[in-house]
């Protein structure tokens, strides 16, 4: 491996260029394009956390959107009723989402499999009903308007400005995704794999499947809560339709097509499936048809998602081009 030093240098260069591009983006683009990037970053947190639950632990949670919604409502209500800013709201959102995940997990994680899948859907629907029917608290279908972004008073920064919020959300998303990938590679993360791959074997070497399933479920909800808080304070308005199953479907497309069993995959999936439908001018009424078709076709023909698609595309290239790319 004589070239490993050069490779590392190249990798550093790529990271530095990438970071520079991320920082420079608001200088170049604005308005709607920036809005899409902010949404993509929020979805990246959500998809990466669901990727840990589905891809690593093999728990097909279809209620992840509920923890997103719980986070959004927690943060929004704290702001609107008590004037508590997003800084604390974010933490409270993460905490309450985790607690709800723990309670739900205690009910259903002892027996996993199909019943787990179904009950997670039901859980999201219960949360939607509460947001819809508890009008005194949530204003029901009218939703909650006026959820403002935070400020840093002594520096004079107001995140009401789109470019500032972009930097904020990128930093938080980066931290979240970094933590998620650290967790995935930690001994705890190996325990998650044991839940997915072979429970009996795992139990025999002392990995409690129940505890690890619970841990991954709570961690996933924690980050979903953060994403929900960011969403509420960015869009300034939330309503019970946050809990709709269509969001779950879009998330599944991001996670599954991004690549199961990785953290980078769902992040890339979130970017691709937030941005591409917009720029392909897929009108919103066709978007769900598009996502449904992608999910079926993807599962049938490219089970490892975009990563597999990329590898296949590379293999399809003529040998000469590949050689040139390898030389860089």
């Amino acid at each position: 491996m004589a070239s490993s030093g050069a490779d590392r240098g190249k990798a550093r260069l790529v990271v530095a260029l990438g970071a520079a591009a991320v920082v420079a983006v608001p200088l170049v683009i604005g308005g709607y394009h920036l809005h899409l990037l902010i949404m993509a970053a929020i979805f990246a947190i959500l998809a990466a956390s669901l990727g840990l639950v589905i891809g690593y632990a093999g728990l097909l949670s279809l209620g992840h959107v509920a923890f997103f919604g719980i986070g959004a409502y927690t943060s929004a209500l704290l702001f609107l009723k008590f004037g508590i800013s997003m800084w604390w709201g974010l933490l409270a959102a993460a905490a309450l989402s985790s607690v709800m995940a723990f309670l739900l997990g205690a009910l259903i994680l002892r027996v996993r499999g199909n019943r787990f899948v179904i009950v997670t859907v039901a859980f999201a629907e219960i949360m939607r009903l509460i947001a819809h029917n508890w009008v005194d608290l949530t204003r029901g279908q009218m939703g909650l308007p006026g959820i403002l972004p935070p400020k840093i008073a002594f520096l004079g920064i107001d995140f009401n400005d789109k470019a500032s919020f972009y930097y904020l959300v990128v930093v938080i998303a980066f931290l979240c995704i970094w933590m998620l990938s650290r967790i995935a590679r930690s001994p705890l993360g190996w325990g998650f794999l044991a839940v997915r791959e072979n429970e009996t074997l795992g139990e025999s070497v002392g990995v409690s499947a129940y505890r690890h399933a619970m841990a991954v479920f709570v961690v996933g909800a924690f980050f979903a809560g953060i994403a929900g808080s960011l969403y509420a304070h960015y869009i300034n308005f939330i309503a019970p339709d946050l809990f709709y199953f269509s969001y779950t479907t879009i998330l599944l497309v991001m996670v599954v097509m991004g690549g199961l069993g990785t953290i980078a995959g769902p992040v890339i999936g979130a970017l691709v499936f937030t941005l591409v439908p917009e720029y392909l001018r897929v009108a919103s009424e066709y978007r769900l048809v598009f996502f449904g078709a992608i999910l079926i076709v993807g599962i049938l023909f490219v089970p490892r998602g975009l990563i597999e698609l990329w590898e296949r595309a590379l293999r399809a290239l003529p040998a000469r081009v590949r050689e040139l790319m390898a030389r860089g």
Partner: protein
Amino acid sequence: MLETIAQYAFNGLVFGANYALIGIGLTLIFGVMNLANFAHGQFYMLGGFLAYMLVVKLGVNYFAALPLAVLAVAALGWLLERTVFIRLRDRSPMTGVLATIGLAILLESGALLTWGPQPESIPNPLSPMPIEIGPLFITPMRLFVLGVTVVFLLGLYAFMNHTRTGTAMRATFQNRDAAALVGVDIDRLYAVTFALGAGLAALAGVLLGSLFLVHPTMGDSATLKAFIVVILGGLGSVIGSAVGGLILGMAESFGTMVSSAWKDAIGFILVIVILLYRPDGLFRR
């Protein structure tokens, strides 16, 4: 007061019998194919809409449109099993579930594009005037719906217990490999099961759609109700689904006496109670 209770009980029976139809379809697919079908409610929706199209756009007689719509959805189910689900059979159960979720969203958004978001009613030739039976006032259509549902439930029971295919289904419920070993044609059985399950959901869609309205997004809540029924009864238990359907129908009907806004939450509360005290459902398979 007694009249009111009887009226609610009758409504609960009509709904419950239809929930049983949807639930049994779902549990058959689950029991035979080990597949949690999240597109089940969309078959229910398609049944309703095809009947609407046949009656309103093509002028077909209601009583002919009913079996035609059901057969069309069953054929679609057969086709989907042959083209999509057959390829996922040996992969992890999660991929099958994901495919049904993709299918659900495809069918629902496709229906929205085709028929638009407004609800439609399926016209039927029966008189809308209620007839008085004892303490009850019942429209002929409700009586027809209940009658057809009960006939189908009894027919299913006979089918499961007295035909070769039904026996093969029950055998596959218990042990797929052993069933294949003694000569059950698994390929054929899977296709038949998926078609039958889809057809039962479509039947419920036409029947309930004739009492109320059909709209493209009615599938989602039907899927959830079907799963509630199946969890109540026990995953893979046909009798359990029948009983679970009746329990849910009754509970919802009487629940509306208390609060109509929270009516849809009743099923979930039942599920939580069942999971706490009898996690395998009322009837173990």
